[in-house]
């Protein structure tokens, strides 16, 4: 339609420059036009006094428009456009050879089939039109890129789509020849590591337009995709784990499906999930218990719905290191309290958490429980960092700040900040502000805001019905039942506790998990909150009698709420507490032959970062081959060492890191990586038209689909890139000008006739 009225297609107008080639000076034409139009308007304004004002304006405007159009045509407007010289230029044709091109989401045909249509043996109008104009250079790309002699070489088995690298390589390979542009045939489902914006910047600088041809559909008719999994890398055996999954769908909104969690093939949880209604993804949290030790591959899956084309994206896997180690927690109480006995009993059977309790029974008289040697805590609360930092967690009960020396208060704060330990502060008559902690280094580490005034007021006491916040409901440590709904119900049934500490606010960055209403306090009070502090975490549980949830008359005898809560709280407390050597692989799952980073954080026994250490990662492949990979200090961060390793085999790789300082081993650490097919091509596999349009727009190219591709050969010809000539294309004879002229004059005549004018 556009071409019918305007003679040329839009691309000509976009690419061309407007010029006027009138043999008569343009100013003279404009002057003549103004005079003629002026006469006409004057005639209506003065000569037709019997006419009303409105018809006179309309008739004048029509006359002026017609004359203006005529003047425009007489100026002989034309477009000057750069056009390639046939067969003098090269055109790079890049074809996506990745697995997603096998998806048959358009007319039940695989995306790759269109490539055969265009460039197959039988040839096509597209190929011949391009061949007539350009010397064609074909490339295939997926995770790698190479020249393509014939489309029959395409396998569509590439495991990744790296558009940026492909563009970069093509630009470099064709840098020495006159290049008219690049044409990329792809679905745009890019999952490469290279920066697309940097590649485009180079192309912009070289003036190479990139035309993109999108294959596939923007949105599948029916699809469920688990696009992301967020799980802890390492947890203690027997811990409750919360894993966040990002799920999106198309065509199945609102449908209820079962999410199945498998631990190395064994189903550990089935959770009903309602798919989100719109196109936006939703986050689903699933809780389960990890019971088997070792490096475990967890698989999260939703059964494919009928009619789903892409089924591979219904599952996602992650590797979790389940550790059967014992974490040590020091529990210090300033007075014998029920909480001591009930807490110890609640976690007595937990083989992965040992609670060493130190209770100040009288002034300077301490009782020890759960210690493993006669020397442990024999001198009371640790007064050296070495002694305190050997614990992974620290619980402070009802003990006043003035009990500690200034150095011990700093030490407790550093236990969290530097050592990365977990600090749990419990409510009590000598806790928080009531214990004089406001303004101390310990207060800095707390997630709650201490009100200095409350320390001076008469004792606060309130019975509180504890309820989880929306975040608390989803937190792994707050799960009291197998499902979140049951857990919420259980929270609602728990009897009231009491507190002696009024905490109204948490610090910025802290998270509240439990709150409660207290008599005489307008806003909900904080019951349980946490925050990251330095390398560690700090949790405050502002009650004095959590043991009620074991002992209370309303709690059934066989109820395990109290045990479950403490067990989960303490495991959360020590979860992720670093060892002197902590190892992190770049990803838990990698593609074979793709390099991955190994990062280690090395500290001494006092958890001070060591920069001059000799750190070596020994990687053992599934077939038992070991290779040493030296890790170098990153310089950017104290104590951080990094190296790179490329797995050559599929399967589980074990990474053992040993750090030495002055020849002595300061620590070891381990991590695991699963090398295998990540199936990345099936996630986010819809045609990414926005990305493709953006690539074209930023480089001066155009975006096409199979419906519009027929104009590509001619469009690509209009470019200044390569060897080109400038063509002049007349606009004065565009049909639209004639049509408008007739329309204006005809309208004026009809209007005059209606008003009875000659």
């Amino acid at each position, binding site marked *: 339609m556009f071409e019918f009225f305007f003679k040329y297609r839009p691309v000509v107008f976009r690419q061309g420059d407007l010029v006027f080639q009138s043999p008569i000076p343009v100013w003279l034409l404009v002057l003549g036009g103004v005079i003629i139009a002026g006469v006409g308007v004057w005639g209506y304004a003065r000569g037709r006094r019997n006419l009303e004002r409105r018809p006179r304006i309309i008739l004048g405007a029509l006359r002026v428009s017609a004359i203006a159009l005529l003047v425009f045509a007489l100026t002989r407007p034309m477009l000057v456009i750069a056009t390639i010289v046939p067969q003098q230029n090269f055109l790079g044709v890049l074809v996506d050879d990745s697995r997603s091109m096998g998806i048959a989401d358009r007319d039940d045909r695989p995306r790759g089939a269109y490539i055969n249509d265009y460039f197959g043996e039988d040839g096509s109008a597209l190929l011949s039109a391009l061949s007539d104009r350009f010397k064609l250079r074909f490339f295939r790309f997926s995770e790698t890129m190479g020249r393509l002699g014939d489309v029959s070489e395409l396998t569509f088995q590439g495991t990744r789509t790296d558009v940026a690298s492909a563009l970069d390589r093509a630009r470099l390979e064709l840098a020495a020849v006159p290049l008219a542009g690049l044409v990329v045939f792809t679905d745009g489902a890019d999952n490469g590591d290279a920066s697309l914006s940097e590649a485009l910047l180079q192309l912009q600088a070289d003036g190479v337009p990139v035309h993109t041809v999108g294959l596939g559909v923007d949105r599948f008719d029916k699809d469920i995709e688990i696009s992301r999994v967020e799980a802890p890398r390492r947890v203690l055996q027997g811990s409750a784990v919360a894993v966040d999954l990002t799920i999106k769908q198309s065509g199945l909104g609102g449908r209820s499906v079962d999410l199945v969690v498998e631990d190395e093939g064994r189903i550990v949880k089935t959770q009903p999930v309602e798919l989100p209604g719109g196109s936006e993804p939703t986050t689903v949290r699933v809780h389960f218990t990890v019971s088997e030790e070792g490096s475990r591959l967890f698989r999260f899956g939703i059964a494919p719905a009928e009619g789903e084309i892409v089924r591979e994206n219904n599952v996602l896997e992650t590797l979790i290191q389940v550790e059967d180690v014992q974490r040590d927690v020091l529990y210090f109480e300033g007075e014998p309290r029920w909480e*001591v006995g009930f807490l110890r009993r609640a976690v007595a059977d937990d083989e992965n958490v040992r609670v060493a309790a130190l209770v100040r029974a*009288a*002034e300077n008289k301490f009782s020890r*429980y759960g210690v493993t040697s006669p020397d442990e805590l024999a001198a009371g609360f640790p007064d050296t960092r070495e002694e305190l930092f050997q614990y992974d967690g620290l619980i402070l009960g009802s003990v006043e700040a003035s009990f500690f020396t200034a150095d011990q208060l700093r030490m407790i704060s550093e236990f969290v900040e530097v050592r990365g330990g977990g600090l749990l502060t419990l409510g009590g008559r000598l806790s928080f502000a009531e214990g004089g902690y406001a303004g101390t280094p310990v207060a800095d580490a707390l997630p709650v805001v201490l009100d200095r005034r409350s320390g001076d007021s008469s004792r606060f006491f309130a019975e509180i019905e504890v309820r989880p916040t929306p975040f608390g409901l989803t937190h792994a440590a707050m799960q009291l039942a197998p499902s979140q709904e049951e857990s919420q119900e259980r929270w609602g049934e728990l009897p009231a506790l009491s507190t002696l500490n009024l905490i109204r606010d948490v610090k910025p960055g802290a998270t509240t998990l439990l709150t409660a209403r207290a008599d005489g306090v307008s806003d909900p009070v904080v019951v349980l909150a946490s925050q990251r502090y330095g390398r560690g975490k700090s949790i405050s549980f502002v009650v004095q009698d959590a043991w009620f949830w074991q002992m209370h008359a309303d*709690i059934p005898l066989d109820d395990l709420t109290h045990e479950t809560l403490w067990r989960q709280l303490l495991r959360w407390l020590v979860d992720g507490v670093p060892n002197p050597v902590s190892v992190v692989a770049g990803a838990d799952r990698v593609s074979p032959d793709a390099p991955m980073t190994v990062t280690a954080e090395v500290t001494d026994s006092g958890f001070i970062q060591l920069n001059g250490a000799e750190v070596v990662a020994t990687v053992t492949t599934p077939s038992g081959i070991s290779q040493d990979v030296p890790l170098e200090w990153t310089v950017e961060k104290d104590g951080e060492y990094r190296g790179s390793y490329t797995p050559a085999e599929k399967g589980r790789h074990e990474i053992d890191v040993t750090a030495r300082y002055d020849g002595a081993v300061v620590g070891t650490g381990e991590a695991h990586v699963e090398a295998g097919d990540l199936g990345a091509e099936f996630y986010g596999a819809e045609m990414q038209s926005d990305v493709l349009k953006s690539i074209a727009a930023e480089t001066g190219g155009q975006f096409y689909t199979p419906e519009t591709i027929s104009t590509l050969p001619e469009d690509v010809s209009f470019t200044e890139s390569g060897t080109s000539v400038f063509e002049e294309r007349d606009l004065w004879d565009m049909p639209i000008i004639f049509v408008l002229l007739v329309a204006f004059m005809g309208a004026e005549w009809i209007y005059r006739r209606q008003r009875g004018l000659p």
Partner: protein
Amino acid sequence: MMKALAVTSMLVLVALAAVALPAQAQRRGAGFSRNVQDYNAEYNGSFTFLRLRYAPLSAWGGRRSREAEWAHDWPRAEQHLAVMIEELTTIEPNADGSTIFDADDPEIFKFPVAYISEPGFWSMDDDEERTLREYVLKGGFLIFDDFAGSHWYNFEEKITTLLPEVYPLRLDATHPIFHAFYDIDAETLDEFVHPLQWIPSEFYGLFENNDPDGYMYGIVNYNNDIGEAWEWSDQGWIPVDLTNEAYKLGINYIVYAMTH
């Protein structure tokens, strides 16, 4: 350290003797109404002494109307003990006093140490038995005191009813309960006698799975009456040494129960 504590405790004994307590010595079974719970302290999280009330046995073995064997030494025994606990330990006992509940009262679950006086007269109906069993299995700790001689038979029968799989195990001085706060040695324990009958005391423990190294449900002071010693500690009727040891036992029991 122990000497210092012993000296402190002696001083406190003297102090107690000087304090005029509001309640005077009361004969068992007389002097207070059935609404004794009106005197109960409100729960506030602090340690509060709980005395269990029961209907004593009749001469024919059946239950009779409520008498007050259970109340022997009340209220001065617990009042004196609370003073000692406050003076000698970091525990802050409930300033409002102690509590008394029937064994089937759900309020007992707020007070995880329960004192049962004169278990030779102890009886339970079905509700009391069920509630008290739940109390113990959940984590409540029982202290049996003030009985001797043939009173053992009623105690044994009732404890077998309450905890059918559990039988009392004789304790010696190596058990941690005798070292929870004060170190009470074997000699002291062996020399312990009933403050009125002067017969050698015996100490028994009630254990989960009858494992003497395991979780303890309660302690039994047989041929003993430490409550008597607590009650009269301000009057000098009981020898000071014996009173002193009775307080040591009481404090050890409380500290042990709170931390185990």
